[in-house]
């Protein structure tokens, strides 16, 4: 049988658009199983989910399908506006998101703050490497998308910025 990558992709697309939750295909000892991720937010966000799955669209959308045992995506930050002119600052690595340099300090940035490309917006920490993330854009923070102390994924959006 041996499915090609594009065929698997096509299958995922078909199942995504359908009302099917789970799909299995077994032939000649080869097995493909595709299951939609559960939509509920998981409480213990310790295990590393696979690649970050970006939220597809707001409310009432079938959950994104996941192949095999892929863990549920990190709690998807609500993306209310579909503004395409907003810049997303994304996490460069898997780690813990900190909004301030210490528990007692003020956050580096808050909604409404003006930033420039060299402004430090947060720390992402993994294995005690403290990554002080620079904004890379100038503008205004529109929304903070992650919570202090949350485990964030590679590529996960952390801030929405309206570029100036």
């Amino acid at each position, binding site marked *: 049988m041996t499915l090609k990558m594009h065929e698997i992709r096509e299958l995922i697309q078909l199942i995504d658009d359908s009302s099917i939750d789970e799909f299995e295909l077994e032939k000649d000892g080869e097995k493909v199983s595709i299951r939609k991720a559960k939509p509920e937010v998981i409480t213990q966000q310790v295990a590393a989910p696979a690649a970050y799955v970006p939220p597809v669209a707001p409310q009432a959308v079938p959950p994104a399908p996941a192949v095999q045992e892929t863990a549920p995506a990190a709690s998807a930050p609500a993306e209310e506006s579909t503004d395409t002119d907003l810049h997303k600052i994304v996490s460069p690595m898997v*780690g813990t998101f900190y909004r301030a340099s210490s528990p007692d300090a003020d956050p580096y940035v808050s909604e409404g703050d003006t930033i420039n490309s060299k402004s430090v917006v947060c720390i992402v920490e993994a294995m005690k490497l403290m990554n002080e993330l620079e904004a890379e854009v100038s503008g205004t923070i529109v929304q903070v998308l992650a919570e202090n102390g949350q485990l964030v994924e590679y590529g996960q959006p952390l801030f929405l910025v309206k570029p100036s």
Partner: protein
Amino acid sequence: MGQVLRHEVLSVLLENSANFLSGEEISKRVGVSRAAIWKHIKELRNEGYEIEAKPRKGYRLIYRPDRVATEEIQNELSTKLFGQQIRYEPVAKSTQILAHQWARAGAPEGSLVIADEQQAGKGRLGRVWYSPPKTGIWMSLILRPPIPIQQASHLTLLASVGVSSAIINQTNLPIKIKWPNDLLLQGKKICGILTELRGDQDKIEYIVLGMGINVNQQSDHFPSELKEVATSLAVQGKQSYSRASLIAEVMKELEYYYLLYLEQGFEPIRNRWESLSDLIGKKITAKTPQAKVVGVAESLSSDGSLMVRSGKELITIYSADIDKE
């Protein structure tokens, strides 16, 4: 200017500490008058050096105070890169802050900031690192690794391997690494490593590797809240150690593992880390910012995270304080 010459006089004396050197010989090597040499010898004595002077024979260095100034370290360095540029401050707020400033001003890779005392030594997340004068090694090394940002956390584990190896070479003490990079002796902290990265979403600008090593503190030097959790090499080894020699050794081992990593990747570092850690196979509690995980530390994964077996689950730990049961 006077200071530079004094360093040169000291270097000449250090290189020839087995023999007497005449004032004339020293003045020829350093390129100043004999009267100036005499002035510098007097100043070195004021700093704590004991220099024997004999008529017709000259000068000989017989005692070096345990200083961590540039010339003391450069004299023992055997590296190509690390510690080739040193900035020494008798007192600094934090070597991390100075290293960040220096890195932003363009300091080359391997540049090192050392302080004899830190008034506000930086720990992780705003914690303070106790750094009294003349006892420990408080320093920050600037790196500019040509690696993707996602792999940068390898360097925190690499640092613990390099510093452990250096301490073991110099003291023979049984250092153990606690994940990810605390160094322990008899279960108490001997060295903390703070790694700060500056960069944007896809590029490392620079990394500052901060290290605090408790070297010559006596147990009554530690404030009461640290006594149970911290110790020093002197307390454990029952002797004092030369901080300058240890710094030179740390630079050598760090450079060795850093170049090995750039050439062969994380695998050799991981092997060495696992052999220096006493965590693998042990029952642990990991307090992460999200949850508390109890299980058995199974292995170090290829990104440096800790794999913990908790019941049927295999959990990946990226951020946590680890306690052995």
